[in-house]
């Protein structure tokens, strides 16, 4: 009997481990991470924001690179509407040297990032979110201090060629939120580079 109970407990806990990370509709926790300018940033610093577009991205991944210009354009357009981009590099530079803090500073400067580019040095924030790859997008809405996950997935339907995009999942989701509506599409999948950890 004890063995059965133990087995049940193990099963339940393994399911709980697998279910880690946010789903659409979950409330999200704030975080505090170091930006490329050396200052620490939290979502609570943005008192005027209506929400956030949290993008796990990095320097080395070709999919992340393919989306850099589109992320900059998005931020320019939507920051003033109340949905700023917050980019986070979740990778361990011991595994991918190109994704070091210095590498992030360099890449942000080269590309002229208009948004904060934060370093998840302890690799805790991406785990909380449940991000698995770069780029991986989470749209959060904000009601007073409560953050709610509204969309998880990809930016659009063509990683290769911005001019051939026909569906803009991220813009559609944020446009809906700006009209006080729930996004029609709340979850999409995309090819990406797995997040790099030592474990």
């Amino acid at each position: 009997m004890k063995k059965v109970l133990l087995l049940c407990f193990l099963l339940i806990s393994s399911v709980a481990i697998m279910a880690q990370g946010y789903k659409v509709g979950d409330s999200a926790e704030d975080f505090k991470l170091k930006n490329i300018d050396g200052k620490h940033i939290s979502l609570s610093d943005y008192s005027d924001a209506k929400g956030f577009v949290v993008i796990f991205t990095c320097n080395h991944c070709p999919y992340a690179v393919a989306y850099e210009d589109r992320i900059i354009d998005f931020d320019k357009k939507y920051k003033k509407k109340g949905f700023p981009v917050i980019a986070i590099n979740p990778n361990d530079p011991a595994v991918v040297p190109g994704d070091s803090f210095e590498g992030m500073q360099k890449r942000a400067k080269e590309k002229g990032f208009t948004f904060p580019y934060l370093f998840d040095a302890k690799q805790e924030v991406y785990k909380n979110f449940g991000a698995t790859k770069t780029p991986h997008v989470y749209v959060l809405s904000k009601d007073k201090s409560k953050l709610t996950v509204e969309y998880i997935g990809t930016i659009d339907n063509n990683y290769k060629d911005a001019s051939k995009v026909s569906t803009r999942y991220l813009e559609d989701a944020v446009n809906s939120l700006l009209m006080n509506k729930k996004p029609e599409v709340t979850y999409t999948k995309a090819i990406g580079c797995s997040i790099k950890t030592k474990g």
Partner: protein
Amino acid sequence: MMMKQRLFYLLIVLISISLNGNSQDFKTMDYEALKPSFHQQNDTTYVINFWAMWCKPCVEELPEFEHIRKSYENKKVKILLVSLDFGSNVKERLTKFLKKKNINAEVVILDDPDSNAWIGKVDQSWDGALPATVVYKKENRKFFAGKITYSELAETIDNFNR
């Protein structure tokens, strides 16, 4: 005149041979064209791996697939490496890369940038992070997200053929 013409043809043949030597002709396909590879109903066990040259864990595990290919050479096991590489001279770069790494399994290029439309068809649980591997024989199927080892592959293949 005849001589000159012959020389001319010889030259063309030589040029085309040397061009072929530079880059293998990988099949480039969209998901619809690749799809039948996931639903073969014969006695072969298929190992299909999604990878790319720039993907570090993918490159690290390539020798595992090559090892499987060799040790199951006379058994009904087929390895298919689905490359998601894109950009300029991709075929040429792939040829060089595979030669350098001594990888001889079949490689196809999947060029289907609307990935939300097909990732879930490969496996419901896959969200698109590379690498990923499907092992199947008829209706028996197992999906692996992330890096895989020789022993995991061998165990799965052996289980399907017990």
